[in-house]
């Protein structure tokens, strides 16, 4: 009995870990990634690979240069790169994907102190930056199963069609993702499968996705548009299930998460319908990211064992 370790309790720890959580997120993203790659072909595969590889590489190189412990093993950089790629159309030039990855990881994540410290979702900010800089290159959406190099006529995304009040494709086609869009956003079915997996494995709490989706549905319908198409289009499911639920940039309590989801839904719908920009989801989430500390403050939990403060005591 030499070499006994002395530590603070508890001496048991669950077998959960940051890398396990990230691995589960990657697994949950696999269905939509695979569908996207099948639908949009080799270009999609290349965009995804570039996104992931450059995200991981950026983190590695940054940490090497700054002489910090290397954290690529926690897989969070890989998740960021993957999410970024899935939020881009398959026609995006690869160097832009690489640039967006580097911005996400280095500027948005590492410069703010690394994992856990960033104020907004790195993948979303990376995406917003390149869509603002290179608007035309990053908005050539094509229909599935079209050879982008030969026949690069940009298809209209669902969102464009809704905004233009055009005839919409049948619901089942939308559900399976047979319409133009970003690599990872088209197939609702695959996204929902991933979402259910994350909820069942308790990686995410369903509060944000549910409140986000429901708000969007109700608000879109209330404004006289087709709510169902509203939630099946424009990356809403991808955003609600995978981006808005980013731990670091969303509130801690369930109450806070619901407020966050409702806020995302309202802003998304407003931007889509009243704004000129179709990219409501990204902006809405980033905006709510910024409000997260405030929401956390307002929704701090109260212990049932805390002494009621004077006001409440009087009310009783």
């Amino acid at each position, binding site marked *: *009995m030499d070499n*006994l*370790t*002395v*530590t*603070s*309790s*508890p*001496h*048991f*720890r*669950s077998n*959960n*870990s*940051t890398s*396990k*959580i990230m691995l589960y997120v990657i697994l949950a993203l696999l269905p939509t990634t695979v569908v996207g790659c099948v639908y949009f072909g080799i270009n999609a595969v290349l965009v995804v690979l570039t996104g992931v590889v450059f995200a991981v590489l950026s983190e590695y190189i940054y940490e090497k240069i700054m002489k910090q412990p290397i*954290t690529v093993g*926690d897989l*969070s950089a890989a998740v960021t790169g993957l999410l970024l790629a899935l939020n881009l159309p398959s026609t995006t030039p690869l160097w832009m994907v690489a640039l967006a990855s580097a911005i996400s990881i280095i500027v948005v994540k590492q410069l703010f102190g*690394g*994992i*856990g*410290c960033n104020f907004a979702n790195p993948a979303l900010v990376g995406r917003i930056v390149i869509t603002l800089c290179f608007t035309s290159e990053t908005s050539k959406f094509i229909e599935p199963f079209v050879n982008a190099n030969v026949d690069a006529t940009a298809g209209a995304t669902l969102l464009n069609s809704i905004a233009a009040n055009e005839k919409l494709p049948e619901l089942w086609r939308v559900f399976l993702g047979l319409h133009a869009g970003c690599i990872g956003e088209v197939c609702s079915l695959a996204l929902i499968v991933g979402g259910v997996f994350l909820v069942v494995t308790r990686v995410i*709490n369903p509060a944000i996705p549910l409140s986000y989706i429901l708000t969007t549905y109700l608000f879109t319908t209330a404004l006289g548009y087709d709510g169902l198409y509203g939630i099946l289009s424009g990356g809403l499911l991808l955003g609600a299930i995978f981006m808005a639920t980013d*731990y*670091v940039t*969303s509130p*801690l*309590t*369930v109450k806070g998460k619901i407020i966050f989801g409702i806020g995302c839904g309202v802003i998304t719908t407003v931007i889509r319908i009243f704004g000129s920009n179709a990219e409501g989801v990204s902006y809405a989430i980033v905006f709510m990211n910024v409000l997260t500390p405030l929401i*956390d403050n307002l929704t*701090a*939990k*109260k*212990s*049932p*064992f*805390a*002494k*009621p403060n004077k006001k409440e005591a009087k009310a009783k």
Partner: protein
Amino acid sequence: MALHLKTVNVRHHKLTAEKETVIMPYSCNLVIPMLQHIGRPCVPTVKVGDSVLKGQIIGEATEFMSAPIHASTSGKVVSVRDMLCPSGVYTPHIEIAPDKEDKSIEPLSFKIDSLSDLVDATRQLGMVGLGGAGFPTSIKLNPKNIDEVDTLIVNATECEPFITSDYREMLENAEDIKEGIELLKKLMNIKNAYIGIEDNKPKAIEIMKKLSGDIFEVKTLKSRYPQGAEKVIIYHLTGRKVLEGQLPADVGVVVINVTSLGSLVRGLKTGLPLTHKRVTVSGDCVKEPQNVYAPIGTPIDKIIEFCGGVVNEPEKLIMGGPMMGVTMCHGSMPIIKNTNAVLLLSKKLADTPEPTACIRCSKCVSACPFNLMPTVFEHAYHDGDLEALEKHKVMLCMECGCCSFVCPAKRPLVQTNRLAKAALREKK
């Protein structure tokens, strides 16, 4: 308001559940600390060279918040010196060399007609909370607002992994427990009595149900951690909330650990003070895990030796359970009244991994039975923001460990809470 507080699922590891308690013979010198309870230490009443009898007072409880300490066997006092006791403070320890005769004092005789008789006897017998807390039982049984107390809860949840000493008490001494409940109900004029048992102990539930009659009610609780924490069991059985700064009696409840109750009844029957304790010796590094009835003051390494010694490579030696127990850096520390387990765990079971950055996953927040926000405490503590710590009620933290247990980043949340509480106390 939710009807259930948050709890976590930990593996039970009750290796020793079906092992009958074995009595450990006197084989070595006993080292008896003068502080084996919450409160003030006792004052030694013997000096080197004195002969003592089993059950003789060797430490006098001179203050209210205390309980006397008795010799665990007959023998000679060989040293009285200040040492670090298991609760982390320096107190006198009395070392006794047993004479192997194990001669007892004349049994004390009690006449218990009223609560004050019982309180008196309880104090004389040196009874303290044996479940781990070590709160002097005589004080517990004598709340100021005794008229308002209408509920007795016998805590037999034993929610910590590995530990089976309370379970064995129910299997081996069920009658004593029943008599104890009867006695307390009568003398304290209490209406309802419950015994709370986790559902992973069906045998104990069955035995207690058979005995219950109209004396008490067996309440089955889900086996989740920390079901046995005082505020948690009170809330789950009665729906009453023991608020910050309150005692259970303030909401009309008295909670007593099942082994404490059984031991009290045996003490009253035999007239012999508390000198022994059932300790679960377990873990994957003990050759023969078992429940040992050991003299108080026996050094841990002797008990482990008695259980066949060490196998594998132990990483941690824990006094108490893996969730709230205290790690020891060597085995010379003696077991005391409120020791309920000695665990020897390998790295595989009890590893404490290097923490990584908090990813704000909110798992700690949703695991806390008291709805506290451990990650917020951590940030506030590191920012030196005592105001935020106070506002978010770090003082309510019972250090149950659920938050650290679930944290994927392996943050030392409980440790930080302890530091934060100490910082707040200092400020005051």
